[in-house]
């Protein structure tokens, strides 16, 4: 049994990757699971036949990760393709298409503020859940290539969509623009209309509570400072 995003998840793992990555999420807690992830080895073997570029181990990791994302929608939660950092019990999510530099920017936050202050909650696909009145960000073992994740729960402060640019510039997005990007970067339950509806309801709630920004950025501490100051509504001071 695992405890992921506050849920008791029953999942048998056979591959090395998922076993190793899942270790910090293992729990001795017994009782009824909230979620069962049950993908047979035959299904995985079949996928591997069709797409041999990944090994069995990787397919197990990918398949079960998607299964978790979809089932999370039954528990007021979803996964967003983003790199999530926690600082002072507030979570900031950096989202962008693959290869833009989410992880790089998150890494810069650690460098700027110190690794003791900034924790990477999840470097690829953090889980978000609405509990009561608040949206929380959780680490999961599905953190992509970097294996950077922490089994913690942090209230969401802001979402920042990144774009590579020469000059740093940040602006708050209108709801209309934000919703388009949030849908695009969410793990969408494409084959389930009911769950898609649940996802859109969650995004609606998220937008009522959370500011969403667009950050043009280069790889610099200036980009970190601009993002941090804007999110925390501070005036930028010239050093």
């Amino acid at each position: 049994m695992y405890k992921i995003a506050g849920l008791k998840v029953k999942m048998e793992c056979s591959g090395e990757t998922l076993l190793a990555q899942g270790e910090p999420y293992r729990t001795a807690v017994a009782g009824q699971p909230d979620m069962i992830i049950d993908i047979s080895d035959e299904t995985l073997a079949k996928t591997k036949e069709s797409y041999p570029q990944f090994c069995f181990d990787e397919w197990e990791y990918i398949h079960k990760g998607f299964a978790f994302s979809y089932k999370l929608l039954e528990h007021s939660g979803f996964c967003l393709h983003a790199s999530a950092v926690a600082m002072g019990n507030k979570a900031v999510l950096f989202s962008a298409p693959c290869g833009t530099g989410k992880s790089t920017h998150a890494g810069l936050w650690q460098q700027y503020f110190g690794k003791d202050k900034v924790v990477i909650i999840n470097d690829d696909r953090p889980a978000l859940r609405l509990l009561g009145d608040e949206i929380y960000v959780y680490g999961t073992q599905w953190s992509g290539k970097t294996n950077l994740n922490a089994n913690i729960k942090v209230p969401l402060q802001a979402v920042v969509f990144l774009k590579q640019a020469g000059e740093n510039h940040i602006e708050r997005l209108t709801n209309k623009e934000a919703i388009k990007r949030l849908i695009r970067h969410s793990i969408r339950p494409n084959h389930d209309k009911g769950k898609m509806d649940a996802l859109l309801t969650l995004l609606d709630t998220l937008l009522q509570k959370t500011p969403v920004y667009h950050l043009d950025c280069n790889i610099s501490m200036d980009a970190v400072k601009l993002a941090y100051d804007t999110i925390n509504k501070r005036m930028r001071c010239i050093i």
Partner: protein
Amino acid sequence: MRIKEGYLLREVAGSHVVVPTGKATLDFTGVITLNETGAFLWKLLADGKTSKELLGALLEEYDTTEAKAKADIDIFLTKLEVADLIE
């Protein structure tokens, strides 16, 4: 005339968004946003209403002229056809 199967129209944070589900995800990746009139017409088209019925409904719902309504419907339908969203 009907909107193809699988598209889900929802109001999210004050915007009307359309997301593909099921087989539609193979034809259309991404998100469509509609203004209020667009969402109004989309719902009628999802029910398979004719362009004549669209015109009647639009004139009843909005304070507009027949010529303007007709033109708006034409533009909207052309956009949907170009995006291959109706059958």
